[in-house]
């Protein structure tokens, strides 16, 4: 587990163009983690520990089903973020996140991040704008998957 300097945080596309002051704030609660192939970053039902920024490798977002085992719904790669349950009560994870290959992520702890968003509305706005963009992308992708556009008519 390694602390992450603000300038490294600022290189991640999810946080690009955030002010140095805000990056310093986030750096205080950020650490770098590594996961081996097949390891779980987070598990459905567990406490939402924070926001994951993928630096390298790939993370499969999946649901475990009794009959099929892990059912992947989306893959998240370098430069992308995953995890928003830290922001939304009851702060409990909805999906599993599994490393498909050796994966390095930055984890920003959810609890202080939430508190910082409350006390510093400007930081809260910038983070929410990024999270909404990410959510909109995921929602659009999920809708296209449901549409099953390759299905033979």
């Amino acid at each position, binding site marked *: 587990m390694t602390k992450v300097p603000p300038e490294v945080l600022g290189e991640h596309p999810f946080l690009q163009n955030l002010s140095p002051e805000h990056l310093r704030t986030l750096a205080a609660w950020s650490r770098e983690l590594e996961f081996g192939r097949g390891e779980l970053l987070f598990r459905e039902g567990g406490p939402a520990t924070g926001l994951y920024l993928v630096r390298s490798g790939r993370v499969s977002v999946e649901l475990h089903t009794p009959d099929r085992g892990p059912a992947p719904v989306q*893959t998240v790669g370098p430069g992308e973020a995953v995890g928003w349950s830290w922001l939304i009560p009851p702060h409990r994870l909805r999906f599993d996140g599994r490393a498909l290959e050796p994966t390095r992520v930055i984890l920003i702890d959810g609890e202080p991040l939430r508190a910082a968003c409350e006390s510093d509305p400007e930081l809260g706005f910038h983070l929410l704008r990024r999270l909404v963009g990410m959510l909109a992308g995921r929602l659009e992708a999920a809708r296209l*998957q449901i549409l*099953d556009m390759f299905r033979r008519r």
Partner: protein
Amino acid sequence: MAVPQPVLEPMVPVTAKVLGVRRETPDTWTLSLEPDRPGLPAFRPGQFNMVYAFGIGEVPISISGDPARPERLVHTVRAVGAVTRALAGSRPGQVVGLRGPFGTAWPVEEARGRDLVVAAGGIGLAPLRPVLYHVLSNRADYDRVVLLYGARSRAELLYRRDLERWRGRFDLDVLVTVDRPDARWRGNVGVVTALFQQAAFRPEATVALVCGPEVMIRFTLLELEKRGVPDHRTYVSLERNMKCGVGTCGHCQLGPVFVCHDGPVFRTDRIRDWLGKREP
């Protein structure tokens, strides 16, 4: 935009022998054809032929082989109707009819010196494969080359051998995703537009080529716009009900254009207003 080249007797088919039939997916086959008549016009990536199953009918099928080997015409056919089912079921030695090549081509010359993003969905990889053959034969002419390919499932990925070979190259980024993974799939899951997050290219220096279901095309164009690739450097290949192949019958009219003659490859800014246009 490439200007359509003249064809021999455009309404008269030449015969071609089926050299081989390869099953690509549960409902898609690739036919290798050898025209009986030598000296047919060479095709350019993106063009199509009208392929005739004698006694049944004729359908437009894009040419999916190597443009450097025009003596062997390769067509990938999804068996969805009487003609395509007959073509898919043909055997080596059988004879089919061919008219073409018709239509406009992908701008492989304009893309020289730039990054090239090729985005394909499902059978939309077929008209783009000649681009990849051309680019890989002339690799030094292009900067970064990225292939983004999405299919419904692992079983429905076209050209698996090509994809595996291309993924092994250091000068081509190949990102593949499926909407519906099975237990054996270890790759990306999600729609093809989600792959843009992982793709490295310079939007200001990119030419993008897009082919797939029309919904996929529309959302891919939005993704390219979001990343800053201008409309005049993105190209799409459209599919319509093409009959004559030479812009006469009007079946494939899309607003002011005939897809068979003015397309199937269009620069996006020239047809932007007609994409997604609904029938009244």
